[in-house]
């Protein structure tokens, strides 16, 4: 079940011409696709595109009414291949994923698509997860755009600009027979704003109005056609695109008084740049800037004529381009040189040249540019003074104090995560064996096990690649190679890249597949398999009786040793892992570690529990507590758990100084603390409280009996204690 529901918000997608649409970036993007008359949409989840997939999933009713086909693709390659529908036919389509990882996966299909060229507009919406908080390596989608010749749109981050560019983008794609990327940065996906809506356009072709199959030999990827396609790209498609971009002024020029200089900027960075100029007194809140700006809403291809006309008469140009290599700056440099221009070009030297361009970086870069170029019409000294005023510094003494006391908060598994007991078990087996494991980790929440307190995992190669990643190292390890993969990764790539290949190569190692029934790390989207305890997959397709179990899949490609273990049975999990490490069986050993997300379970059963209690039905609620009397504050329990609900508090015992463990009210009673206390022989402090609501006569009678006897004995103990008092 997706963590976030957009059921209410998607109603905005029905707004008609002239109405004001208010909402989040991802919803605006969806609305723009519908306004553009797309015939199909698809994609694969991953931040910041996960919510776009959730929006699409939640808007299936509206999509269905319009006749738009939707698929939740098995991977980005699946999604990219969907775009094949636009090769032969005038059908518009869009797919979405997280870039650049998703683009990597899709690149085979994209390259072929771009070579064939498209008849209907084809758009790939890529969410850029770039910068400090990113969960992926820092690379640019720009490189893919250039290498495959797909156009790259990078709109100014406000909803009207984004919506407009999506609509124009489909026209551009069709005019130039070229698929394109729409790039949205992570904050843009979640920015809120408003725009004036248009009517949705139902696609021309649908189930009720099918299209006659057509075959165009020049769209097939075979020699000698491929070479013709290459010629077509340069001779026809590129000039057509440039002409359209120029004619419709997709890039924007903003005049400024200080026309000796100019700034060339990616559309997506426009707001950040304007804010920096505003703070330096060089722009107002509405974007009226004293420095002329050339805003590239299309960052590939560039338009030499436009650029040279902007540069004409200027002494200095500053290119603000996020990411490296600085492709745009390089190309502009070449344009200027070829045109014999004397303009001095600045870019990655004044700006950091890598990483996400934040407000501070823009401020520093602009101030440095003005100081260096002192353009006529601008009081550079005053700008410098304002810059100095804007700079903030925290004193060294404070920084030291903060540095000593501000703790890192690495990502971890949520309270009640079914993966926690698995990693507790793995860590305990590792401790019992007395040596470190080499573990090939994978993409997904389970990757957090590489962080404290588990510290398990050595490499992450890609989504579903962990088994393949242990294929060479397995021959050099003192223990059987261990790979851990999520169910999401398994279906995305792991089954073929990993399991099938490993069986074929007689891989004598262990694959643990974490199976919680849905794609957890990206926000709870559906996958082909789901776990037994409940049919969790309720978001988009309600109940799915036709599930595709992981066990059947691995047996189908030849795995013989398969164990399915409930993660919450820590002792059994440990025993299974020990068995897999020690068995004589030499083939691939697959452990399916199955467990339901307890937060999901809470969402599912909480209303039921509440109803039962309100209805007067006998109900038992469970949670864990730690006894502060017997807890000695060594926190061994935390080191094999890391549960957010298992925390510390000041020791109530004045003799002891170390904080005691403490289970806070967010505990969902998953039982991992108790299981760990047992299996790792920790301490006698853990206790499970079972609170009975609406007790029946038996509960009440037993309670009276127990309390009577126990109370008497306790009073005796109290008297003894009083006697031993000083």
């Amino acid at each position, binding site marked *: 079940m997706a963590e976030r529901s957009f059921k209410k918000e998607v109603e905005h997608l029905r707004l008609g011409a002239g109405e004001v649409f208010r909402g989040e970036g991802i919803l605006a993007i969806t609305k723009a696709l519908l306004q553009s008359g797309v015939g199909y949409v698809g994609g694969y989840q991953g931040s*910041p595109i996960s919510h776009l997939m959730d929006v699409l999933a939640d808007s299936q009713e509206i999509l269905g009414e319009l006749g738009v086909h939707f698929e939740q693709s098995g991977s980005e390659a699946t999604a990219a291949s969907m775009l094949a529908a636009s090769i032969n036919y005038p059908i518009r389509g869009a797919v979405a994923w997280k870039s650049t990882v998703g683009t990597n996966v899709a690149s085979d299909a994209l390259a072929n698509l771009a070579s064939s060229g498209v008849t209907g507009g084809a758009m790939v919406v890529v969410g850029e997860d770039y910068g400090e*908080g990113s969960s992926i390596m820092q690379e640019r989608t720009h490189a893919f755009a250039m290498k495959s010749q797909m156009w790259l749109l990078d709109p100014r981050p406000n909803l009207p600009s984004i919506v407009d560019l999506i609509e124009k983008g489909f026209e551009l794609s069709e005019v130039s027979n070229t698929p394109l990327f729409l790039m949205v940065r*992570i*904050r*843009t996906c*979640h*920015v*809120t704003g408003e725009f004036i809506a248009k009517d949705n356009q139902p696609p021309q072709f649908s189930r009720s109005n099918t299209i006659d199959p057509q075959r165009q030999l020049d769209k097939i990827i075979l020699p000698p056609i491929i070479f013709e396609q290459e010629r077509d790209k340069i001779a026809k498609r590129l000039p057509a695109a440039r002409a359209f971009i120029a004619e419709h002024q997709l890039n924007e020029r903003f005049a400024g008084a200080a026309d000796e200089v100019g700034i060339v900027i990616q559309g997506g960075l*426009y*707001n*950040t740049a*304007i804010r920096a100029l*505003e703070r330096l007194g060089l722009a107002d*809140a*509405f974007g009226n800037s004293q420095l002329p700006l050339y805003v590239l809403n299309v960052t590939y291809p560039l338009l030499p004529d436009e650029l040279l006309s902007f540069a004409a008469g200027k002494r200095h140009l500053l290119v603000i381009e996020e990411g490296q290599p600085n492709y745009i700056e390089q190309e502009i440099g070449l344009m200027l040189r070829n045109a014999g221009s004397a303009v001095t070009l600045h870019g990655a030297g004044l700006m950091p040249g890598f990483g996400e361009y934040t407000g501070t970086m823009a*401020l520093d870069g602009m101030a440095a540019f003005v100081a260096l170029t002192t353009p006529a019409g601008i009081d550079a000294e005053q700008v410098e003074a304002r810059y100095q005023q*804007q700079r903030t*510094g925290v004193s060294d003494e*404070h*920084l030291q104090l*903060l*540095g*000593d006391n*501000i*703790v890192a908060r690495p*990502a*971890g*598994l*949520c309270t009640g995560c079914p993966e926690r007991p698995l990693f507790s078990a793995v860590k305990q087996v590792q401790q019992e064996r007395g040596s470190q494991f080499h573990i090939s980790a994978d993409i997904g929440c389970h990757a957090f096990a590489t962080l*404290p307190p588990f510290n398990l995992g050595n490499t992450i190669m890609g989504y579903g690649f962990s088994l393949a990643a242990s294929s060479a190292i397995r021959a050099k390890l003192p223990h059987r190679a261990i790979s851990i993969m999520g169910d999401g990764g398994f279906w995305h790539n792991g089954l073929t890249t990993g399991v099938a290949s490993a069986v074929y190569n007689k891989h004598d190692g262990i694959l643990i597949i974490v199976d919680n029934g849905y794609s957890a790390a990206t926000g709870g989207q559906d996958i082909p398999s789901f776990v037994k305890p409940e049919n969790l997959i309720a978001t988009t397709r309600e109940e799915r009786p036709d599930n595709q179990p992981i066990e059947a899949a691995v047996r189908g490609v030849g795995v013989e040793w398969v164990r399915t273990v409930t993660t919450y049975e820590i002792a059994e999990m440990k025993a299974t892992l020990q068995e897999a490490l020690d068995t004589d069986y030499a083939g691939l050993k697959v452990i399916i570690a199955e467990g339901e997300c307890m937060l999901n379970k809470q969402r599912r059963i909480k209303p039921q529990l509440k109803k039962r209690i309100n209805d007067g039905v006998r109900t038992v609620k469970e949670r864990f507590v730690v*006894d502060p009397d*017997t807890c000695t504050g*060594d*926190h061994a329990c*935390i080191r094999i758990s890391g549960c957010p609900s298992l*925390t*510390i508090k000041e020791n109530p015992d*004045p*003799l*002891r*100084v170390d904080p005691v463990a403490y289970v806070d009210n967010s505990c969902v009673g998953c039982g991992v603390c*108790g299981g760990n*206390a*047992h299996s790792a*022989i*920790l*301490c*006698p402090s853990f*206790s499970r*409280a*079972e*609170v*009975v609501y609406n007790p029946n006569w038996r509960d009440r009678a037993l309670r009276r009996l*127990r309390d009577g*006897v126990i109370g008497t004995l306790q009073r005796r*103990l*109290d008297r003894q204690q009083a006697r*031993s*008092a*000083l």
Partner: protein
Amino acid sequence: MARPRVAPPARRGDRYAAAPARPSTSEECAVSAASIRIVIAALGGEGGGVLGKWIADMADRNGYQTQTTSVPGVAQRTGATIYYLELFPRSAVAAASPVLSMFPAPGDVDLVICSEIVEAGRMVQRGFVTPQRTTLISSTHRSYGIAEKQHWADGSADKLAIATVCRDSAKRFIGFDMQETARAHDSVINAALFGAIAATELLPFAREAFEQTIRDGKIAVESNLATFAASFERALAFNSSSDNVVELFEPAATPVAAPRTATTASGRALLARVEQLPESAQALAWLGVERLADYQDHAYAASYLDMLETLPRDPQLLEEMARYLALWMAFEDLPRVAQLKIRSSRFARYRQEVKAGADQPLHMVEFLHPRVEEFCGLMPRRLGQWALGSALMGKLLGLFAKPRHFRTNHLSGFLVFYLVAGLRRFRRGSLAFHEEQQQRQRWVDAVAALAGEDLAAARELAHCGRFVKGYSDTRERGLRRVNLIVEALQQRPRSAAEIVALRQQAVADEDGSALRAALAS
């Protein structure tokens, strides 16, 4: 490991230096802030997004255009995350739209709202809090990071230090335990933060607009409004009193100060002996005496004082020894655990902690995993030693030594514990008692011997008693650490600084290899 802190924890009640002078209004730089810029720093799962939505909804209904951005995703899985809002008056929007930023920028934020004090510190660290401009609102409670929690002893941050920096770095700082305010009214922290925001009068909306927003949310309206009002009042106090905010928010722990009274003859005798100790060690020593009288009997407590009295009268050394010797002597064997588990006071506390009603049936399921070693430890010394070595006994005891659940509120479970607790009268003859006593005595002797030569080093060795805690493997690891250090000192004397360094190495890893390496070098 974050920052090994083996020295005694800082006294939490210490006052930090007074606030430095703030720039006066005339010195404030004239920044053309066309929009109101707000940062919300929250932890994953706390609902920072909901607070952002409250502010945005309120602004929207009161003539302001709002833009919010955030980076959800991985950051929310227990990580820290921030939401950024800009509010722009619609009256100023004519034909053109304002260009609002996607990022908060250092030096360019009017209001920073934090759900936790370390996150407030992080906002200062990142430069979002400036004395010229920024009002900082933060709850002062702690939500501990994994590095703090997994520390073998106490790795927790000094929140008073952070709060002091917050006070000195902000134009205005409002900090108190808003989680407690929320809890008192059975609500969530957002409502408390919202109340504090309203009290600052920084946003151009009246209190009624805030309250209306809560009502429009239609969720837990009554409790949210009550929390809002309580927090509003509390925050107002900060408005009128800006210099002593650190006093306004509570200093955490109270120093050790228990009333010392004795009613029995032997109790009075013990008290008289405690009062002969250096003043600063008396409180701890008396706690130790009380602990041991409860653990065993008055004679046992007297033997504790015997040991303290043989040591040099150095206050600091005696403080350390009073604490760690008492804890070691009151080690948690099965009778002790049973004794603590079945107390009426524990039953009451337990019921309160799980919020069970007074007449609600409550089952208490204890998770125990006694090992064969624990059973043998209970036996008379020689029998226990024999049993430990006997395969047959191992098998027999193995029937009991396994993961077990006991329901202490059921007769069967209670009676088992009751009987085991009664075994403490035979404790002195038991194997476990004998072994603990031997190990403890080696440490006490080493401290006493060292105190004659190097008092500072002896204090640090005394502090090594802190390693001795926990159960089974954890306890054995701790004991091994103390033993290794004691043995190393017998080989050659080491300075206080060297012992501190050894202590740090001792907790650098779980298997003790860092300590062994440090001792070998």
